[in-house]
């Protein structure tokens, strides 16, 4: 057999270290472009605010993350992160539970499906941001409104994806479980539910992006802390040295959650990988 090519073509088989190296290339490239551009701009105008130099950025990060606010004793980045994650997780966990239950029942019970399926499809087409004002009016501008927005934005997607997952299971499984002695509730919660769990985790992974979007939108409009709040607050001063680290931080958080959930799936549901 011929040696497979390292990089090009359908038969390429890049080695383990080469893969790591290759994965780093786009990141390094972007960093290099940024640094070069910053230097060029600063050569023209030393007071440029649009592309802060790496030194300026690292000073800013130091200030944001590792030095306490003199008045409140808080570390800005961490308190913003805590506030945002609390909202994000509350919203997404509630959406996951509700979506799972709704999707399961829609997929298994024709009567339930007959009543709620069209309504869910209709509901899922509401642009959540368009009803944000209604939310502020109805539930007030505190935490509940932000969590509700995330919930409304993410829940239909999870419900519909769960529904599709249930539908894709062969009907034979339901019959089989009943012949083995399962009651109707057993079928839903002891036979089908465990098979849907990895799919649920995957659809949470996919909806994390949307959840962040709604979180930041809600915080931008009405909040007193949080990552989105901060970004939109300092926007007025064109403080790119704060905005850029915040954006990077949010991205990094999202990336880590995705990775964690993937690991969780691999660990808990070995059978799902096949």
């Amino acid at each position, binding site marked *: 057999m011929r040696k497979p090519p390292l990089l090009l073509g359908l038969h390429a088989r890049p080695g383990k270290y080469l893969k790591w190296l290759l994965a780093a290339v786009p990141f390094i490239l972007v960093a290099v472009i940024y640094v070069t551009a910053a230097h060029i701009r600063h050569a023209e105008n030393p007071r440029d605010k649009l592309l802060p130099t790496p030194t300026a950025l690292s000073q800013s990060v130091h200030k944001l993350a590792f030095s306490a606010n003199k008045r409140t004793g808080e570390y800005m980045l961490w308190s913003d992160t805590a506030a945002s994650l609390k909202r994000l997780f509350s919203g997404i966990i509630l959406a996951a539970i509700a979506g799972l239950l709704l999707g399961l029942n829609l997929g298994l019970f024709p009567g339930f499906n007959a009543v709620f399926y069209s309504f869910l499809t209709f509901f899922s087409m509401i642009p959540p941001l368009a009803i944000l004002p209604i939310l502020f009016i109805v539930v007030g501008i505190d935490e509940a409104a932000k969590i509700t927005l995330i919930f409304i934005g993410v829940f239909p997607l999870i419900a519909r994806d769960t529904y599709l997952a249930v539908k894709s299971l*062969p*009907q*034979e*499984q339901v*019959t*089989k*479980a*009943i*012949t*083995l*002695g*399962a*009651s109707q509730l*057993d079928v839903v919660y*002891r*036979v089908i539910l*465990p*098979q849907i769990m990895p799919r649920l985790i995957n659809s949470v992974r996919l909806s994390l992006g949307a959840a962040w979007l709604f979180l930041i939108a809600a915080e931008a409009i009405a909040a007193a802390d949080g990552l989105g709040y901060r970004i939109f607050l300092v926007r007025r001063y064109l403080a790119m040295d704060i905005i850029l680290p915040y954006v990077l931080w949010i991205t990094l958080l999202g990336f880590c959650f995705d990775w964690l959930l993937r690991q969780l799936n691999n660990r808990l*549901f*070995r*059978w*799902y990988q*096949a």
Partner: protein
Amino acid sequence: MQTPKRANDYLLHIEDLYKSYGNKLILDNIDLSVTSGELCTVVGPSGCGKSTLLRIILGQEAQDRGHIHIDGKPADFPDTRRGIVYQRYSLFPNLTVLDNTLLGFNLRHNWWQRRRQRKQFEQQALHYLSRVRLEEHAGKYPHELSGGMQQRAAIAQALIMRPRILLMDEPFGALDPQTREDMQLFLLELWEQEKMTIFFVTHDLEEAAYLGTRIFVLSRFYSDERGHDEQQRGAKIVADHHLPQVASASDIKKQPAFIELLESIRRAGFDPDVLQHAREFNLQHPDAFQTLTDSETGIDKI
């Protein structure tokens, strides 16, 4: 015309069963009854409705007309009296082989009972797994098993609950000839030991004749007095034989009598050019019966 037999005397009793999809009649006035302990096989050309018949007996699908009784009691939605082994999808992919085998126990007992009797259930499950020669694979997931091993696990999973009747839909259809033969012997062995009643669907005539104590041939290739409109006519049981008990002798497949039997069944059920009249079906089995309608026999025209 024989008189219809009484449902109570039989393990499985089906009378006047009709089923159509759209305007195409699939099962056409099926009558059959099965006594306990028989290994019935059902053969017929591909697409004649064998799986449909089995799904209806199982309760997974509803008939258009007709009655099904198990032990004299009506059988509609699936329940624990009927066990099932499909060609695929019989195992739950998220459970190990052991947990798949234990599933019936786990579903039938509450949390407290499961905790107290876990050891006992597990022992029994392992016993069944050793019967299907899978005890070393108890901890594996279905996708880690070969096709034959999956089918053996599925058989253990269904058997351990001791259903009144075990339905099997081409359980060995996807296996290579060698494994298939192994599984056939294995099934016969189990059937003899456990005194089970089995209803075994296959499109392989040789398999049906070899395994069964009784064979049903389901086919659309017959004639009656209803004219020649193919759409209006579905599959009937065109032959119902008792088969000689040959369990262990696998060289039976080469004996002249066996080959002749296959030939006669092939003519009756599989040859589109040979059309027996509905009144002349070979229904020799003592439990066989037939309830032809007047239009089928032509009485209404006289």
